[in-house]
C-alpha cells in the first residue's frame, strides 16, 4: 500500500511516516498544505492519503472531496486532534473517507483500516 501523508505539523508528519512504515506500508510522499497535497496525489497516485482536517490553506474536507474526483481516487483517512463527538453524529463525511482521531492512531489501527482492502 502506497501512502501519502498530509499534515501541517512537521513532527507529526515524520512520526506518522515512521508509524506507516512500521505497519508495513510505503510512504510515497509528505505534503504540508492542501495545494501540495492535491498536486502530489495527482503525480504519485497513492492508494491511501492520510489527511489532516485542519490545513493552513483550506479545509482538509474540501481536499478530500477533490481527491474523490480524481481518476483512481485514493482512500482517504481523515485525521484530527479533535474527537469524533466534536463533529456530531449527523456530520456528512466526504465519499470514500474514514475519520480517525489522532490519539487513536497506531500501527495496528492503520493496518486494519488500510490493509483490509
Amino acid at each position, binding site marked *: 500500500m502506497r501512502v501519502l501523508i498530509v499534515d501541517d*505539523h512537521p*513532527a*507529526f508528519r515524520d*512520526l*506518522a511516516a*515512521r*508509524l506507516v512504515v*512500521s505497519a508495513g506500508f510505503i510512504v510515497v510522499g509528505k505534503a504540508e498544505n492542501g495545494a501540495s497535497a492535491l498536486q502530489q496525489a495527482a503525480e504519485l497516485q497513492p492508494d491511501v492519503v492520510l489527511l489532516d482536517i*485542519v490545513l493552513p490553506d483550506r479545509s482538509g474536507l474540501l481536499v478530500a472531496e477533490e481527491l474523490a474526483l480524481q481518476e483512481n481516487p485514493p482512500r482517504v483517512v481523515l485525521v484530527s*486532534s*479533535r474527537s469524533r463527538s466534536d463533529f456530531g453524529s449527523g456530520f456528512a463525511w466526504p465519499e470514500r473517507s474514514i475519520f480517525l482521531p*489522532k*490519539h487513536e*492512531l*497506531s*500501527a495496528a489501527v492503520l493496518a486494519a483500516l488500510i490493509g483490509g482492502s
Partner: protein
Amino acid sequence: MTKRAAQAAVWAASAAIGIWLVLDVVRQRALGVDDPGLYFVVVATTVAAVAANGVARSDRHAVLAVLMLWWLVAAVGSDAGVMWPDSRLASTTYFVFTGVVIGAYVHMALAYPSGRVEGRNDRLFVVATYTVALAWIAIPALFYPGCTSCAPAVPSLAFTGSTFDYSGIGTAFEWIFIVLGGVFVGLIVGRLRSWPRGARLTMVPLAVAGLFATVHFIIRQAAILTTWSQASAALDWADRINLVAVPVAIFVGVLAVRRRRGPLGDLVVELGNAPPGQVRAALARSMGDPSLELALWLPDHGGFVDETGAALDVSKHVGGGRALTVIGPPERPLAAIVHDDRLVGQRPVLEAAGSAALLAFENARLQAELRAQLLELQASRARLVAAGDAERRRLERDLHDGAQQRLLALGLALQLLQNERPDARLLSEAQDQLQAALHELRELARGIHPAILNEKGLQAAINSLIDRSPIPVRTDIECDRLPSPVEIAAYFVVSEALANIVKHAEAQAVSISVRLVDDRLVIEVSDNGHGGATPNAGSGLQGLADRIGALSGSFRLESPAGLGTTVHAEIPCASS
C-alpha cells in the same frame, strides 16, 4: 364632577326656580297680595343663580357650584308652604326644606373653596347640623297631629295621635340652634386664622357674609325665645339679603382664587404633572406653538439632547421663521427652546415660562442623563461579554494548535518506541515534544491568570512582565497588596499596553508608573513610539476601558501622532 355637569345642573335648577318664582308672583297677584319682599327674592335668586353659574366654570369648583344650587333650591323651597298653605304637597315641601336649608347652608359654607368639607371637626359639625335640623322638623311631624302652634307649622303627617307638649322640645331646639350658630362662627374665624396669608383674602367675602348670616340667625332665635315681635320684619329682610350675599361672596372668593393662579400658575401645575417625555408637549400646548422644540443641556456630553436623551443640534432648527431662547446663564446653559419667531416679542413670558418649567426640565434632564448612561452601560456590558467569548475562542485555538499537537506527537513517538527497538533519537524527540508542550501550557496559563499576581502581588507580577519585554522599561511602582479585582485589572492594563507597544508602536523606551493616590490606584504606561493609537482599532484597549469602567474607574488614552502614547487608568480601591 366636571364643570359641564355642574353648569347643566345650574341651568336646570335656575330654570326650575325661575318658573317657580314666576308662579309665585302670579299667584300672589291673583290673591291681591303685593309683597315687595317677593320681588326682592326674585332678584336675589337670579343673582345667586348667576353666581353659581360663574362658580361652575371650572372643574375645580364644580362641586361647590352644586352645593350652592342645593342651598338655593332649599332656600326657595322653604318658602313654598307660605305661598300655598292649603296644599299638602307644598306644606310638606316647605317643612322638609326648612330643615334642610340650615344644613345645606352650613355644608356649602364649610366646603368652600374645594367643594369638599375637609377636616374632622368640620365634617362632624356639618353632620350634626343636618341631624339637628332634620330632627327639628321630624319630631313634630311624627308626633304632632296638625300642630299649628309649632314652629315650624307642620301639616298632619302624624302617625300617633298623641297630644305631646311640644313647647319644651321647641325651646330646647332653639337653644341648640343658638349654640350651633356660635360654633359655626368659631369655625369660620378659625379658618381665617389657620389659612396661609395669601389664601385668607379669598376667605374674607365668605367670612363676612357668613358672619352676617349667623348673627342674623342667632338674633332670630333669640327673638323667638323672648317673643320680641317687632324684630320680625327687619329679620325677614336680613334673610333675603342673605340669599344674595352668600352666593356672591362665594363667587367673589372663587374669582380671587382663579386670578391668583393665572395662566403661569396653570402652566406650572401642568408641567409639574406632565409625565417625563411630555414636558415639550405641555410647553408647546401652553405657548400655542405646536412645533416648539425643547432641548436640555447635558454637561457630561457638552451638548444639547432632547427629552429621549438623543443628541439635538439646536442650531439646525433656527432660522426660517424659528428663533432660539436659551434658559440659564450663557456660560452654563440649562435648556433651550426653539420656537416660532413671532413669540420673540413675548420674551419675558418665555423666560418666565422657562423659569417656571425649570423643575420639570431638571427632572427630564436627570432622566435623559440616566437614559444615556444606561445605554452606555448596556453597550459596555455587551462588549465585556463579547470580549470574554473572544478570549475563550483564542484559548481554544492556542491549545489546539500548540500544546495538543505536541502531546499527540509525543504519543506517537512513545508508540514507536514501544513497537521498535529503543532509539536514542526517538527518545530525545519525545523529550523535546514534552518540554515544548509544557512550555506552551505555562505561557497559556500565564495569559489566563498569572499565578505570581496572586502570590506576590502587583509589583512582582509587573516586574516579571518587564523581564520578558524586548524593549527597556523604566518603572515607578509603589503599592502594597490591594483587593484582587483591582490588582487583576491593573495587571492587565499594563500587560495589554505593553503588548500593544511591542506590536505596533515601534518604541525605544517604555515607562510604567503605578501609585496609590487618595484611595485610587493610578496607572500610567507611556512610550516614545509613533503614537496615533485609537481605542476602536480592535487593539484590546476598548476591552480594557470596559473592564475599568465595570470597576467604576476611569480610562484615558493620549496618543498624538508622532509623539508616543500614554495609557492612563484610575481604579478606586474600596477600603477593605
